[in-house]
């Protein structure tokens, strides 16, 4: 019964420490864009989001204490999402492809306030 295993481990994990790490990461991800470098922004934005998600899933949701298949289950769902993206992007993301084009349409511009 994994409950007992859970009991044992819960006291080792220092949740507050993990929380502090998460806050640190949050600050980095907010600070990232100020460097005005596209690549850095993307890395600090999404790389760090993935790390944060990993920390929360592992330590707060205790996926590390669950039987493996729980993790595989969630990963499979993610795989389906990526599969969906990969197969749909050629039609929806692109503006032209083999023997078809999407002429650009004028999008209603939101009013800009400065």
């Amino acid at each position: 019964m994994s409950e007992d295993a859970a009991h044992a481990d819960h006291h080792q994990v220092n949740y507050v420490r993990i929380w502090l790490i998460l806050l640190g990461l949050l600050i980095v991800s907010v600070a990232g864009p100020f460097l005005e470098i596209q690549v850095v922004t993307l890395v600090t934005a999404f790389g760090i989001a993935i790390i944060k998600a990993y920390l929360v899933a592992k330590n707060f949701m205790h996926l590390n204490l669950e039987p493996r298949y729980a993790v595989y289950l969630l990963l499979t769902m993610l795989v389906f999402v990526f599969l969906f993206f990969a197969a749909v992007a050629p039609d929806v993301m692109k503006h032209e492809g083999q023997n078809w084009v999407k002429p650009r349409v004028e999008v209603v511009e939101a009013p800009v306030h400065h």
Partner: protein
Amino acid sequence: MPQLYLEALSTYASDIDNLILLIAVLVGFWFVLCEGIFFYFIFRFREKDGVRTEYITGENERHKRWISYPHILVLVCDLFILVGAIQVWYDIKQHLPEPHETVRIVGQQWAWTFVHPGPDHVLDTADDITTVNELHVEVGKVYHFKLEARDVLHSFSVPVFRLKQDAIPGRIITGWFEATGVGEYDIQCAEICGIGHGLMAARIFIESPESHAAWIAEKSPFQLAVTATASTIED
């Protein structure tokens, strides 16, 4: 088999019919085989007094062979179908031969608008001929079509050409056809497009060079028609 019910009047129509025939033969073989054995077993192994069933788990290799070998054969058949399918698909949708003329086809609720290039054989010029629910093409010429939709999805379907392509608002889709016989046939809208979907019928007129030229002459706004006729006849 489509050719049993209507003519095949485009260069690739017979390819599609042959592909369909190939598939019919291959799957037909498996279908007859399976159903045959299936019903034979039902008859052969019907309940008889005092006859006890054989205890077959099918877990050992000697038994599994009976299903694993056939399904390898199915895979082989699939490969044949796959090659044929992709070949035909490539010829119709992916590889467009050089066109003699280009027509614009616009679907809207609930009519087809066809823009013919007119005497100068160039689209989007002053002498274009615009018709509603009437597409006039010349036999033996490669046509490109630029397919558009004004409001909702439509589908440009010419059964005698075996051609079908949806029209998507916000997209211009290019395709081609080359007629191989003259006559007048249906053009359908094959994608539900609202209340008038069943009314959205058009006709395609496949004409000999002479009559096509005559039609252009009669329709074209200018007097260029004469020269146009000449040029159409020589090419």
